[in-house]
Protein backbone atom coordinates (compact mmCIF):
# COMPACT_ATOMS: atom_id res chain seq x y z
CA UNK A 1 0.00 0.00 0.00
CA UNK A 2 1.26 3.49 -0.87
CA UNK A 3 0.45 6.08 1.77
CA UNK A 4 -0.38 9.52 0.37
CA UNK A 5 0.16 12.30 2.89
CA UNK A 6 -2.17 15.23 2.32
CA UNK A 7 -1.00 18.81 3.05
CA UNK A 8 -4.12 20.64 1.90
CA UNK A 9 -5.73 23.24 4.13
CA UNK A 10 -9.03 23.02 2.21
CA UNK A 11 -10.74 19.75 1.31
CA UNK A 12 -11.74 21.09 -2.12
CA UNK A 13 -8.05 21.04 -3.04
CA UNK A 14 -7.98 17.25 -2.47
CA UNK A 15 -9.67 16.92 -5.87
CA UNK A 16 -6.78 18.82 -7.45
CA UNK A 17 -3.69 17.62 -5.57
CA UNK A 18 -4.64 14.18 -4.17
CA UNK A 19 -7.17 12.57 -6.54
CA UNK A 20 -4.90 12.89 -9.62
CA UNK A 21 -2.30 10.82 -7.72
CA UNK A 22 -4.63 8.17 -6.27
CA UNK A 23 -6.18 7.77 -9.76
CA UNK A 24 -2.76 6.55 -10.94
CA UNK A 25 -2.27 3.99 -8.16
CA UNK A 26 -3.97 0.64 -7.54
CA UNK A 27 -3.46 0.49 -3.79
CA UNK A 28 -3.23 3.75 -1.87
CA UNK A 29 -4.49 5.33 1.32
CA UNK A 30 -4.71 9.06 2.03
CA UNK A 31 -4.04 10.61 5.45
CA UNK A 32 -3.72 14.27 6.35
CA UNK A 33 -0.39 15.21 7.93
CA UNK A 34 -2.15 16.62 10.99
CA UNK A 35 -3.63 13.19 11.83
CA UNK A 36 -0.72 10.99 10.70
CA UNK A 37 0.23 8.26 13.21
CA UNK A 38 3.40 6.15 13.43
CA UNK A 39 1.36 2.99 12.74
CA UNK A 40 0.20 4.52 9.40
CA UNK A 41 3.83 4.81 8.35
CA UNK A 42 4.60 1.29 9.55
CA UNK A 43 1.73 -0.21 7.52
CA UNK A 44 2.76 1.58 4.32
CA UNK A 45 5.18 0.09 1.79
CA UNK A 46 5.95 3.51 0.35
CA UNK A 47 5.06 7.11 1.09
CA UNK A 48 4.21 10.07 -1.13
CA UNK A 49 3.82 13.56 0.31
CA UNK A 50 1.60 15.35 -2.22
CA UNK A 51 1.84 19.01 -3.15
CA UNK A 52 -0.65 21.69 -2.25
CA UNK A 53 -1.91 25.05 -3.48
CA UNK A 54 0.28 28.12 -3.96
CA UNK A 55 -1.36 29.86 -1.02
CA UNK A 56 -1.09 26.96 1.43
CA UNK A 57 2.01 27.11 3.58
CA UNK A 58 0.80 25.96 7.01
CA UNK A 59 3.05 22.89 6.75
CA UNK A 60 6.10 25.16 6.97
CA UNK A 61 5.01 26.16 10.49
CA UNK A 62 4.62 22.51 11.53
CA UNK A 63 7.80 20.88 10.29
CA UNK A 64 8.08 18.99 13.59
CA UNK A 65 5.21 16.82 12.32
CA UNK A 66 7.58 15.54 9.62
CA UNK A 67 10.60 14.72 11.77
CA UNK A 68 9.90 10.99 11.11
CA UNK A 69 11.39 11.50 7.61
CA UNK A 70 14.89 11.70 9.15
CA UNK A 71 14.82 8.01 10.03
CA UNK A 72 12.50 6.81 7.25
CA UNK A 73 14.09 4.05 5.13
CA UNK A 74 11.26 2.87 2.87
CA UNK A 75 10.73 4.40 -0.60
CA UNK A 76 9.59 8.01 -0.31
CA UNK A 77 8.57 10.63 -2.86
CA UNK A 78 7.96 14.24 -1.91
CA UNK A 79 6.09 16.23 -4.54
CA UNK A 80 6.42 20.04 -4.63
CA UNK A 81 5.79 21.05 -0.99
CA UNK A 82 6.73 17.43 -0.21
CA UNK A 83 10.19 18.01 -1.69
CA UNK A 84 10.51 21.25 0.29
CA UNK A 85 9.69 19.34 3.48
CA UNK A 86 12.16 16.54 2.60
CA UNK A 87 14.91 19.12 2.12
CA UNK A 88 14.05 21.27 5.14
CA UNK A 89 14.04 18.23 7.43
CA UNK A 90 17.54 17.46 6.15
CA UNK A 91 18.89 20.96 6.72
CA UNK A 92 18.16 22.70 3.40
CA UNK A 93 16.96 26.30 3.24
CA UNK A 94 13.92 27.62 1.38
CA UNK A 95 14.73 29.66 -1.70
CA UNK A 96 12.23 32.00 -3.41
CA UNK A 97 11.63 30.65 -6.93
CA UNK A 98 8.19 31.13 -8.46
CA UNK A 99 7.36 28.94 -11.47
CA UNK A 100 3.83 28.35 -12.80
CA UNK A 101 3.20 26.25 -15.90
CA UNK A 102 5.42 24.15 -18.13
CA UNK A 103 9.09 24.33 -17.14
CA UNK A 104 12.09 23.05 -19.08
CA UNK A 105 14.39 20.85 -17.03
CA UNK A 106 17.95 19.63 -17.19
CA UNK A 107 18.12 16.16 -15.65
CA UNK A 108 20.90 13.86 -14.51
CA UNK A 109 21.37 11.35 -17.31
CA UNK A 110 21.83 8.28 -15.12
CA UNK A 111 18.75 8.82 -12.95
CA UNK A 112 15.12 7.70 -13.23
CA UNK A 113 14.34 11.23 -14.42
CA UNK A 114 16.64 10.95 -17.44
CA UNK A 115 13.81 10.99 -20.01
CA UNK A 116 12.15 14.05 -18.50
CA UNK A 117 12.75 17.29 -20.39
CA UNK A 118 9.82 19.35 -19.19
CA UNK A 119 7.40 19.34 -16.28
CA UNK A 120 4.40 21.14 -14.75
CA UNK A 121 5.39 23.59 -12.02
CA UNK A 122 3.25 25.30 -9.39
CA UNK A 123 5.45 26.67 -6.64
CA UNK A 124 6.76 29.82 -4.99
CA UNK A 125 9.77 28.22 -3.36
CA UNK A 126 12.47 25.67 -4.02
CA UNK A 127 15.25 24.63 -1.63
CA UNK A 128 19.02 24.58 -1.46
CA UNK A 129 20.58 21.13 -1.89
CA UNK A 130 20.57 19.34 1.46
CA UNK A 131 23.83 17.78 2.62
CA UNK A 132 24.26 14.20 1.39
CA UNK A 133 21.64 14.53 -1.38
CA UNK A 134 22.20 14.39 -5.13
CA UNK A 135 20.58 16.92 -7.47
CA UNK A 136 18.67 15.04 -10.19
CA UNK A 137 17.03 17.92 -12.04
CA UNK A 138 17.02 21.69 -12.23
CA UNK A 139 15.37 24.50 -14.19
CA UNK A 140 16.90 27.87 -15.03
CA UNK A 141 15.68 29.10 -11.65
CA UNK A 142 16.07 26.32 -9.12
CA UNK A 143 16.54 22.71 -8.05
CA UNK A 144 13.67 20.46 -9.24
CA UNK A 145 14.61 17.00 -8.00
CA UNK A 146 16.79 15.52 -5.26
CA UNK A 147 17.66 12.01 -4.07
CA UNK A 148 19.33 10.23 -1.19
CA UNK A 149 19.01 6.44 -0.91
CA UNK A 150 15.24 5.72 -1.14
CA UNK A 151 14.23 9.33 -0.55
CA UNK A 152 13.21 11.25 -3.66
CA UNK A 153 11.88 14.76 -3.99
CA UNK A 154 10.49 16.48 -7.09
CA UNK A 155 9.43 20.11 -7.14
CA UNK A 156 7.32 19.62 -10.28
CA UNK A 157 3.96 17.82 -10.38
CA UNK A 158 4.40 14.40 -12.03
CA UNK A 159 0.65 13.73 -11.70
CA UNK A 160 0.10 16.37 -14.43
CA UNK A 161 2.97 15.81 -16.86
CA UNK A 162 5.29 12.79 -16.39
CA UNK A 163 2.60 10.51 -14.89
CA UNK A 164 4.89 7.52 -15.52
CA UNK A 165 7.02 8.69 -12.62
CA UNK A 166 4.14 7.82 -10.28
CA UNK A 167 2.56 4.96 -12.25
CA UNK A 168 5.78 3.07 -12.83
CA UNK A 169 8.97 4.53 -11.40
CA UNK A 170 7.90 5.21 -7.82
CA UNK A 171 6.26 1.79 -7.66
CA UNK A 172 9.53 0.21 -8.82
CA UNK A 173 11.74 1.93 -6.25
Amino acid sequence: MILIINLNKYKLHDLEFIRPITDLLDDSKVIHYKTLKRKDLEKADKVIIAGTSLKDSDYLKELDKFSWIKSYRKPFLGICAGMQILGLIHGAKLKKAKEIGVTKLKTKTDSMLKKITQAYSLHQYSITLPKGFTKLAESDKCIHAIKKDNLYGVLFHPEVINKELIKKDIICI
Partner: protein
Amino acid sequence: MRLAVLFSGGKDSAFALYKASKLHKISCLITLDSKNPDSYMFHTPVDKVDFLAQRLSLPLIKISTLGKKETELQDLKLAIQKAKRDYKIQGLVTGAVASIYQASRIQSICHELDLYCFNPLWQKDQLELINELVKEKFKVKIVKVAADGLDESWIGKIIDKTIIQDLIDLNKKNGLNIAGEGGELETEVIDCPLFKK
Protein backbone atom coordinates in the same frame (compact mmCIF):
# COMPACT_ATOMS: atom_id res chain seq x y z
CA MET B 1 -14.72 30.61 2.18
CA ARG B 2 -16.41 32.92 -0.34
CA LEU B 3 -15.64 31.87 -3.91
CA ALA B 4 -16.32 33.04 -7.45
CA VAL B 5 -16.68 30.53 -10.25
CA LEU B 6 -15.32 31.13 -13.74
CA PHE B 7 -18.51 30.16 -15.53
CA SER B 8 -19.26 29.60 -19.20
CA GLY B 9 -22.53 27.70 -18.89
CA GLY B 10 -20.79 24.58 -20.23
CA LYS B 11 -20.57 21.25 -18.45
CA ASP B 12 -17.11 21.62 -16.90
CA SER B 13 -17.58 25.00 -15.23
CA ALA B 14 -21.07 24.00 -14.05
CA PHE B 15 -19.77 20.74 -12.59
CA ALA B 16 -16.88 22.54 -10.89
CA LEU B 17 -19.43 24.97 -9.42
CA TYR B 18 -21.49 22.01 -8.19
CA LYS B 19 -18.49 20.40 -6.46
CA ALA B 20 -17.29 23.68 -4.91
CA SER B 21 -20.79 24.56 -3.67
CA LYS B 22 -20.81 21.43 -1.49
CA LEU B 23 -17.93 22.83 0.60
CA HIS B 24 -17.93 26.61 0.21
CA LYS B 25 -20.20 29.60 -0.33
CA ILE B 26 -20.38 30.62 -3.98
CA SER B 27 -20.66 34.42 -4.03
CA CYS B 28 -20.76 35.11 -7.76
CA LEU B 29 -20.11 33.85 -11.26
CA ILE B 30 -17.60 35.38 -13.68
CA THR B 31 -18.00 35.10 -17.45
CA LEU B 32 -15.69 36.39 -20.15
CA ASP B 33 -17.68 37.00 -23.32
CA SER B 34 -15.00 36.45 -25.94
CA LYS B 35 -15.48 37.86 -29.43
CA ASN B 36 -12.91 35.36 -30.66
CA PRO B 37 -14.64 31.99 -31.26
CA ASP B 38 -11.22 30.33 -31.46
CA SER B 39 -9.94 31.61 -28.09
CA TYR B 40 -7.75 29.11 -26.24
CA MET B 41 -8.79 30.68 -22.95
CA PHE B 42 -12.55 31.06 -23.08
CA HIS B 43 -15.48 28.91 -24.10
CA THR B 44 -17.84 30.35 -26.71
CA PRO B 45 -20.74 31.01 -27.08
CA VAL B 46 -21.80 32.28 -23.66
CA ASP B 47 -25.11 33.86 -24.61
CA LYS B 48 -27.08 31.74 -22.10
CA VAL B 49 -25.07 32.61 -18.99
CA ASP B 50 -27.40 35.44 -17.86
CA PHE B 51 -30.35 33.04 -17.88
CA LEU B 52 -28.31 30.29 -16.19
CA ALA B 53 -27.12 32.70 -13.47
CA GLN B 54 -30.77 33.53 -12.77
CA ARG B 55 -31.59 29.84 -12.47
CA LEU B 56 -28.68 29.45 -10.07
CA SER B 57 -29.75 32.58 -8.13
CA LEU B 58 -26.19 33.87 -8.31
CA PRO B 59 -24.92 37.33 -9.32
CA LEU B 60 -22.99 37.39 -12.60
CA ILE B 61 -20.00 39.52 -13.57
CA LYS B 62 -19.91 39.41 -17.36
CA ILE B 63 -17.11 41.19 -19.19
CA SER B 64 -16.52 41.40 -22.93
CA THR B 65 -13.11 40.63 -24.35
CA LEU B 66 -11.81 40.73 -27.89
CA GLY B 67 -10.23 37.38 -27.10
CA LYS B 68 -6.82 38.50 -28.29
CA LYS B 69 -3.94 36.68 -26.65
CA GLU B 70 -2.30 39.90 -25.50
CA THR B 71 -5.30 41.40 -23.74
CA GLU B 72 -7.73 38.62 -22.79
CA LEU B 73 -5.81 37.77 -19.62
CA GLN B 74 -5.87 41.40 -18.56
CA ASP B 75 -9.66 41.41 -19.11
CA LEU B 76 -9.94 38.25 -17.00
CA LYS B 77 -7.87 39.82 -14.25
CA LEU B 78 -10.13 42.89 -14.22
CA ALA B 79 -13.21 40.68 -13.87
CA ILE B 80 -11.68 38.73 -10.97
CA GLN B 81 -10.58 41.98 -9.31
CA LYS B 82 -14.18 43.21 -9.55
CA ALA B 83 -15.41 40.00 -7.88
CA LYS B 84 -12.84 40.45 -5.13
CA ARG B 85 -13.88 44.05 -4.58
CA ASP B 86 -17.67 43.64 -4.86
CA TYR B 87 -18.18 40.19 -3.32
CA LYS B 88 -15.11 39.89 -1.08
CA ILE B 89 -14.18 36.56 -2.62
CA GLN B 90 -11.16 34.73 -1.23
CA GLY B 91 -10.78 32.26 -4.09
CA LEU B 92 -11.70 31.34 -7.64
CA VAL B 93 -13.00 28.03 -9.01
CA THR B 94 -12.38 26.89 -12.58
CA GLY B 95 -13.54 23.92 -14.63
CA ALA B 96 -10.05 23.24 -15.99
CA VAL B 97 -9.54 19.54 -16.67
CA ALA B 98 -6.38 19.10 -18.70
CA SER B 99 -5.47 22.43 -20.27
CA ILE B 100 -2.20 23.56 -18.74
CA TYR B 101 -2.41 26.66 -20.95
CA GLN B 102 -5.63 27.79 -19.23
CA ALA B 103 -4.90 26.50 -15.74
CA SER B 104 -1.44 28.00 -15.37
CA ARG B 105 -2.59 31.42 -16.57
CA ILE B 106 -5.48 31.46 -14.12
CA GLN B 107 -3.20 30.24 -11.31
CA SER B 108 -0.86 33.17 -12.07
CA ILE B 109 -3.67 35.72 -11.95
CA CYS B 110 -4.99 34.31 -8.65
CA HIS B 111 -1.48 34.42 -7.22
CA GLU B 112 -1.08 38.06 -8.26
CA LEU B 113 -4.42 38.89 -6.61
CA ASP B 114 -3.67 36.82 -3.48
CA LEU B 115 -6.62 34.47 -4.09
CA TYR B 116 -6.95 30.72 -3.72
CA CYS B 117 -7.40 28.88 -7.01
CA PHE B 118 -9.49 25.69 -7.03
CA ASN B 119 -9.64 23.26 -9.97
CA PRO B 120 -11.86 20.40 -8.74
CA LEU B 121 -11.89 18.58 -12.10
CA TRP B 122 -8.11 18.80 -12.63
CA GLN B 123 -6.65 15.75 -14.43
CA LYS B 124 -9.94 13.87 -14.13
CA ASP B 125 -10.36 10.98 -16.53
CA GLN B 126 -12.52 12.24 -19.42
CA LEU B 127 -14.85 9.23 -19.52
CA GLU B 128 -15.25 9.20 -15.75
CA LEU B 129 -16.07 12.91 -15.83
CA ILE B 130 -18.79 12.63 -18.44
CA ASN B 131 -20.31 9.54 -16.77
CA GLU B 132 -20.35 11.33 -13.41
CA LEU B 133 -22.20 14.27 -14.97
CA VAL B 134 -24.99 11.99 -16.16
CA LYS B 135 -25.06 10.14 -12.82
CA GLU B 136 -25.38 13.45 -10.94
CA LYS B 137 -28.37 14.36 -13.13
CA PHE B 138 -26.75 17.08 -15.21
CA LYS B 139 -28.66 17.60 -18.44
CA VAL B 140 -26.06 18.78 -20.95
CA LYS B 141 -26.68 19.82 -24.56
CA ILE B 142 -24.04 19.83 -27.29
CA VAL B 143 -24.02 23.32 -28.86
CA LYS B 144 -20.88 23.35 -31.03
CA VAL B 145 -18.69 20.70 -32.65
CA ALA B 146 -15.23 20.91 -34.18
CA ALA B 147 -13.67 17.50 -34.72
CA ASP B 148 -13.53 14.68 -37.25
CA GLY B 149 -16.57 12.47 -36.88
CA LEU B 150 -18.67 15.15 -35.22
CA ASP B 151 -20.95 16.77 -37.80
CA GLU B 152 -23.80 19.24 -37.33
CA SER B 153 -26.22 16.41 -36.54
CA TRP B 154 -24.62 16.27 -33.07
CA ILE B 155 -25.68 19.83 -32.24
CA GLY B 156 -28.68 19.88 -29.92
CA LYS B 157 -28.15 16.33 -28.66
CA ILE B 158 -28.37 15.76 -24.91
CA ILE B 159 -25.47 13.80 -23.44
CA ASP B 160 -26.79 10.48 -22.14
CA LYS B 161 -25.51 6.91 -21.99
CA THR B 162 -26.14 6.38 -25.74
CA ILE B 163 -24.26 9.55 -26.72
CA ILE B 164 -21.42 8.61 -24.36
CA GLN B 165 -21.12 5.24 -26.12
CA ASP B 166 -21.04 7.03 -29.51
CA LEU B 167 -18.26 9.29 -28.19
CA ILE B 168 -16.34 6.26 -26.91
CA ASP B 169 -16.62 4.68 -30.36
CA LEU B 170 -15.29 7.89 -31.95
CA ASN B 171 -12.48 7.97 -29.42
CA LYS B 172 -11.47 4.44 -30.42
CA LYS B 173 -11.72 5.30 -34.10
CA ASN B 174 -9.92 8.65 -34.26
CA GLY B 175 -8.76 9.52 -30.73
CA LEU B 176 -11.49 12.08 -30.04
CA ASN B 177 -11.32 13.59 -26.55
CA ILE B 178 -14.59 12.31 -25.08
CA ALA B 179 -14.99 15.26 -22.74
CA GLY B 180 -14.29 17.76 -25.56
CA GLU B 181 -11.50 19.36 -23.56
CA GLY B 182 -9.69 20.50 -26.68
CA GLY B 183 -12.74 22.33 -28.03
CA GLU B 184 -13.93 19.29 -29.99
CA LEU B 185 -17.38 19.91 -28.59
CA GLU B 186 -18.85 22.75 -26.58
CA THR B 187 -21.78 22.20 -24.27
CA GLU B 188 -24.50 24.03 -22.39
CA VAL B 189 -26.07 22.89 -19.15
CA ILE B 190 -29.86 22.72 -19.52
CA ASP B 191 -30.57 21.42 -16.04
CA CYS B 192 -28.63 20.41 -12.95
CA PRO B 193 -29.25 19.87 -9.22
CA LEU B 194 -28.26 23.48 -8.43
CA PHE B 195 -30.91 25.10 -10.64
CA LYS B 196 -33.88 26.64 -8.88
CA LYS B 197 -37.17 25.41 -10.29
